[in-house]
């Protein structure tokens, strides 16, 4: 089955997108992910200056998902310009992910990456484990969302995606604020929490930052509900992200309202070729159930 689709005018060979924060540290690794079937890929978030991030352990897996507190380690905007040169030849759209402590920092990173061949810019206003950024800095309110989206839009011609937090109260209001400020799509959702896992024999939290964002299967029902709420609130497309690991999960996310699907933690559960696997399972399900196009599925659970 043909899985081609379009997101904000960007042509995708399929709707399964590598979510930010997983594997996206280098052009070469993005290329591997595309070879493994991703319809588009998102880089690991870039800040203006280099950041070392938190101490290890930074990523762990528990019986119902993954938890991470990487703390936005990244080489900074100048190094990212070298790392992500020549993206067109990768064969699938690459989305930038940029972060800042305030609107002006977001602007500067957007400017710094402007001449690269990204197809869109994602701005996560929702990281739950890095002081100064995301939910820990209050970037998930409608007011801050409006301010930051407006600032970034002034500096780029690319579509801007806003990544929201599942812990935000009234997530539909934040999505509406993003849409009104000019965002082209909503990515929903970031990891939830923060949560904590304590090793009782060591009497210590396991993560170096003590707490971290929860993703994977534990996040999925929350993500589905968030996408459902957002679909009722905005007209712009939604990239449904959170615990999707199979074709059935992806269809469920679409029925909640997603146009495209973000995949991250499932790389742990099913390997780097999870993208291919999800695509073939989606097309199998669609064939068996008589669906030919995604727009027959997106939002089907509403009403």
């Amino acid at each position, binding site marked *: 089955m043909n899985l081609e689709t379009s997101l904000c005018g960007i042509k995708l060979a399929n709707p399964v997108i590598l979510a930010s924060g997983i594997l996206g540290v280098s052009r*070469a690794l993005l290329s591997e992910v595309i070879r493994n079937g991703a319809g588009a890929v998102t880089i690991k978030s870039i800040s203006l200056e280099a950041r070392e991030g938190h101490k290890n352990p930074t990523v762990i897996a528990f019986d119902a998902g993954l938890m991470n507190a990487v703390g936005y380690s990244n080489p900074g905007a100048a190094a990212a310009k070298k790392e992500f040169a020549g993206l067109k030849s990768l064969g699938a759209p690459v989305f930038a992910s940029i972060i800042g402590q305030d609107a002006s920092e977001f602007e500067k990173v957007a400017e710094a990456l402007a001449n690269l061949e990204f197809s869109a810019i994602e701005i996560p206003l929702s990281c739950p484990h890095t002081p100064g950024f995301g939910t820990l800095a209050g970037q998930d309110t409608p007011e801050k969302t409006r301010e930051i989206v407006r600032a970034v839009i002034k500096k780029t011609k690319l579509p801007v995606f806003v990544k929201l937090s599942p812990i935000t109260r009234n997530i539909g209001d934040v999505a509406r604020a993003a849409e009104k400020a000019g965002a082209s799509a909503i990515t929903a959702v970031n990891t939830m929490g923060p949560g904590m896992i304590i090793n009782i*024999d060591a009497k210590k939290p396991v993560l170096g930052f003590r707490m971290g964002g929860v993703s994977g299967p534990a996040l999925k029902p929350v993500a589905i509900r968030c996408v459902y709420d957002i679909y009722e609130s905005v007209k712009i497309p939604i990239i449904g992200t959170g615990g999707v690991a199979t074709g059935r999960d992806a269809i469920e996310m679409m029925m909640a309202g997603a146009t495209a699907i973000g995949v991250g933690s499932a790389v742990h559960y099913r390997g780097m070729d999870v993208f291919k696997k999800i695509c073939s399972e989606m097309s199998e399900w669609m064939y068996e159930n008589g669906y030919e196009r995604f727009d027959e599925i997106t939002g089907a659970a509403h009403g």
Partner: protein
Amino acid sequence: MDNCKKPELPEMVKITKVVYENPYVRTFFISRKIDAQPGQFVMVWLPGLDEKPFSLSYAGNKTAITVEEKGKFTNALFKMKTGDKIGIRGPYGNGFTLKADACVVAGGCGVAPLATLIERLKNPLVIQGARSRDRIIFKGRFKGANITTDDGTEGKKGFVTDVLEAQLMKNKFSTVYTCGPEAMMKRVFEICERHGIECEASLERFMKCGFGVCGQCEASGLRVCKDGPVFQSEKLRTIKDFGSFARLKSGEKVAISDYARWRCQ
């Protein structure tokens, strides 16, 4: 699912014995038995401090890691005694293949992941190098090992690569297994390429998750923690970073010599 909900959490284990290999290197035996392939590694957690990867220098009934004191983390580990607890998760990564008629080339601490390989292989030729006599690890563990030291204080004065070249003139090997400083491994690989011999090298990069999702240890598109740490000639030829570049904790790619200096902090 393929890897159904596999938890990757540290388990606290007791240190059962500490062996002083030399003034700079100690072997820590642990209470948990880990059946690992030669070349696989574990993540070692010191609660509240940090977590780092170490290859297993002994596996099975007597499981151990062998550690050189280099920075803050190994400093803290060296203060630990029998009965103290450390966190362990793994084993991770692939491992070495087990080919007959092999040669094993070890440099410095690189002998740690090769030790269980040497013991599993049938009569391999072992070439083990160290800077000087007091830096040799596992003295007497491998029968008939060809020792080299940079300063000639033990064995042959010179480098492991000199001995490898000389051996290749008179002997045939199916495979050369190697671990050590990356510049040394690169030379070993180049010698193997010249002689048309298979090579397997165990690479080291700064790691975070250890199970292939974060991308931190990426080398030319391959994950050292999951696709490696052992790479065969076919892959080594494609890894442009091999012997040249590695990433700092921020993800910044720097010259391998700068990376090595940073890792010693």
